[in-house]
């Protein structure tokens, strides 16, 4: 797996479409235990990313991710703005100046993004946030890479783990954000941020390797 800047911009573009297609699902998850704006917020954010990157020459992966991060920070409106914004900025910082990235870079980017999300949101695993999807994904990617599996297997493992992490949020009590006001009553609902995280990772896989029928 080698991704250049042009391909990365295509992936980000596709994420905007996939978020749009899943806007209602994200909104409904958020509405159940939060304020119901995650779908529209993410859609606004990734359309802004698309707009910001439309004239980018694709020569520097770090710059592309930095632009995406700033677009998210400035246009989302909800907690997802600073969280995904920080994630993209942090991911960009570890691949500054690179023209292409491989699966080892992806692991570094995900690691740095997750650190950024935890730092910004002051969240830990089991708080019922996107951290629960991201942490599982990173661990799976790390194990798979360490075991010498193919990039396709490794990224697939990360996507599956992210969805497992998303499923796990269902049984958790929310400890961050507005869902935490509901305390025990947040049990039984999946976290919207974990859902968008898993969706984004799945879109990356699909763009790299084609959609798999599941």
């Amino acid at each position, binding site marked *: 797996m080698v991704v250049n800047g042009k391909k990365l911009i295509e992936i980000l573009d596709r994420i905007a479409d996939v978020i749009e297609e899943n806007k209602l699902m994200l909104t409904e998850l958020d509405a159940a235990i939060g*304020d119901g*704006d995650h779908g*529209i*917020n993410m859609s*606004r954010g990734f359309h802004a990313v698309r707009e910001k990157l439309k004239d980018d020459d694709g020569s520097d992966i770090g710059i592309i991710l930095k632009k995406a991060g700033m677009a998210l*920070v*400035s*246009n*989302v*409106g*909800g*907690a*997802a*703005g*600073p*969280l995904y*914004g*920080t994630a993209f900025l942090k991911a960009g910082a570890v691949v500054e100046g690179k023209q292409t990235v491989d699966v080892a870079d992806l692991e570094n980017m995900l690691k740095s993004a997750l650190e950024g999300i935890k730092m*910004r*949101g*002051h*969240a830990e695993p089991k708080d019922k946030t996107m951290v629960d999807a991201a942490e599982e994904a990173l661990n799976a990617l790390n194990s798979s890479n360490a075991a010498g599996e193919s990039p396709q297997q490794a990224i697939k493992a990360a996507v599956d783990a992210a969805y497992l992490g998303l499923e796990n949020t269902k049984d958790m009590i929310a400890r*961050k*954000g*507005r869902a935490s006001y509901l305390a025990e009553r947040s049990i039984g609902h999946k976290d919207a941020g974990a859902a968008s995280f898993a969706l984004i990772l799945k879109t990356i896989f699909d763009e790299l390797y084609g959609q798999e029928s599941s």
Partner: protein
Amino acid sequence: MVGIVIVSHSRNAAEGAREIAAQMAPEVSIAAAGGTADGRLGTDINSILKAIREVYTDDGVLIIFDLGSAYMNAEMAVEMLDEDMRKRVEISDAAMVEGAAIAAVNSGLSKPLSEIMKELKHCRISKMP
């Protein structure tokens, strides 16, 4: 005098809190940063930055906020300031309306930022993560 920035998800709530605080201390610079750029509920880092710059003096700026992402966006806005400005900006987790009023009154009495932070401790509601 310390400038005050009120960050809320709602443009009306930010403006309302500003109005209440300003009534008690009309001489203090208070800016409201409420809602997203396109008028939805939410917080906007660019409008927070603009508000900080609007009320900034070397006496510093105090930011008061309402819920969740308001804090994260305020924190990011502060990180984006130049070093020189950044060290003179504080975020308080005081209840928004009460905090804004108490901060305004104390700023009007020319108290330094550190003193105003102490005055606010009675209405802190531990909403910072």
